[in-house]
């Protein structure tokens, strides 16, 4: 079965991280996408800068992860309608406001019975300002939530920060989200990351340490029991499991499972030779590998 859903990428990052600059360059470099720009403030500015997009939808006056959620759902539904009517929309990029928690947006997408059939979330890219990022991380939890929700992290403005500061920030990002792919860009153009040989910065005490464990899935594990176990785990511990990712065997073939907190993204069937099997990467507030493994074994018995 071909997945004809429209690919959607969430572009997040703190206020002033360089989201629009980065996106502008990608559009200039040939990216074909319809852009949805969300601004927490009442006046939209960024849409004027994105003239090279295939189309721009502006959602101003509310953040799409909380009070602007209904507007986002309505905008996406209308795009889905347009596409169903024959409008060629290659891809959607949702540029969030700097104050948005991408995890909340992912949840809205997964919970809407219409959107879930029309859109396929292909990634969450979060930009981190190399100059101010450290201060934002030290100041509050929202910047940390954004980083934790990412599948790709891009350090921006690395030309304006010292290599030591960049290395320290990069090390911190790896601690916060070890699964995300880390890269760097200046004004949207990819640049190499400096050597990452620094210790991570100490974070506010309100943030508990996030660690990743890899859980082997026993050979011959059946998907029915495994999915039941996952649903129990997410129900009981979803708020402390930040991300879960793995490829499992199902009767229909290899299935990619990804979760953000309690939300499971619609699983995707994978071709036979892509990705690593029988492993579940678990990122959370100190997940206990032994307890997870014993618990899974009880379900699989």
């Amino acid at each position: 079965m071909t997945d004809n859903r429209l690919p959607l990428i969430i572009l997040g990052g703190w206020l002033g991280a360089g989201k629009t600059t980065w996106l502008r360059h990608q559009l200039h470099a040939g990216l074909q996408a319809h852009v949805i720009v969300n601004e927490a403030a009442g006046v939209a500015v960024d849409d004027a800068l994105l003239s090279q997009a295939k189309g721009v939808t502006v959602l101003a006056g509310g953040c799409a992860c909380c009070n602007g959620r209904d507007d986002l759902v309505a905008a996406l539904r209308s795009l889905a309608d347009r596409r169903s009517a024959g409008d060629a929309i290659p891809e959607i990029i949702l540029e969030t406001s700097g104050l948005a928690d991408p995890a909340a947006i992912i949840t809205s997408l997964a919970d809407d019975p219409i959107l879930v059939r029309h859109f396929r979330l292909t990634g969450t890219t979060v930009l981190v300002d190399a100059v101010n990022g450290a201060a934002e991380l030290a100041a509050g939890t929202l910047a940390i939530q954004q980083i934790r929700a990412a599948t790709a992290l891009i350090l921006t403005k690395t030309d304006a920060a010292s290599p030591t500061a960049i290395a320290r920030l990069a090390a911190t990002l790896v601690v916060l989200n070890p699964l995300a792919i880390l890269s760097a860009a200046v004004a949207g153009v990819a640049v190499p990351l400096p050597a990452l040989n620094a210790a991570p910065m100490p974070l506010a005490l309100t943030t508990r340490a996030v660690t990743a464990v890899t859980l082997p899935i026993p050979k011959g594990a059946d998907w029915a029991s495994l999915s039941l176990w996952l649903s129990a785990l997410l129900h009981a511990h979803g708020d402390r499991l930040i991300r879960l990712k793995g490829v499992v065997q199902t009767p229909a073939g290899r299935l990619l499972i990804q979760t953000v907190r309690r939300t499971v993204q619609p699983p995707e069937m994978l071709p036979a030779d892509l990705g690593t099997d029988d492993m579940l990467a678990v990122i959370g507030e100190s997940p206990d590998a032994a307890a997870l493994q014993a618990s899974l074994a009880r379900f699989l018995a």
Partner: protein
Amino acid sequence: MCNACGYPARAGHWTDAGLDSPHDRLRARFRRAEVLARVLRPLGLTAHDDGVTDGMVLSTLSGASVIVTDPAQIWATIERLAGRAYDPLAG
């Protein structure tokens, strides 16, 4: 299932993924009921799926029972019937 468009009336639950044939789906239903009945025994609950009725029947030992049709609600229903939280990581 909607007769007009062929789409199910509600979006599928993620646990339905990977089960394309009716045979696989039925087997998964039986297997889930079997596993649930086993892991829920310490809570004084039992689970049963007859493969025909839409949903899983959860019962307490005193006879109270609930049919859960939405897989997303299963653990919340279990906790309500058991009167306490269920932690899969607790031995």
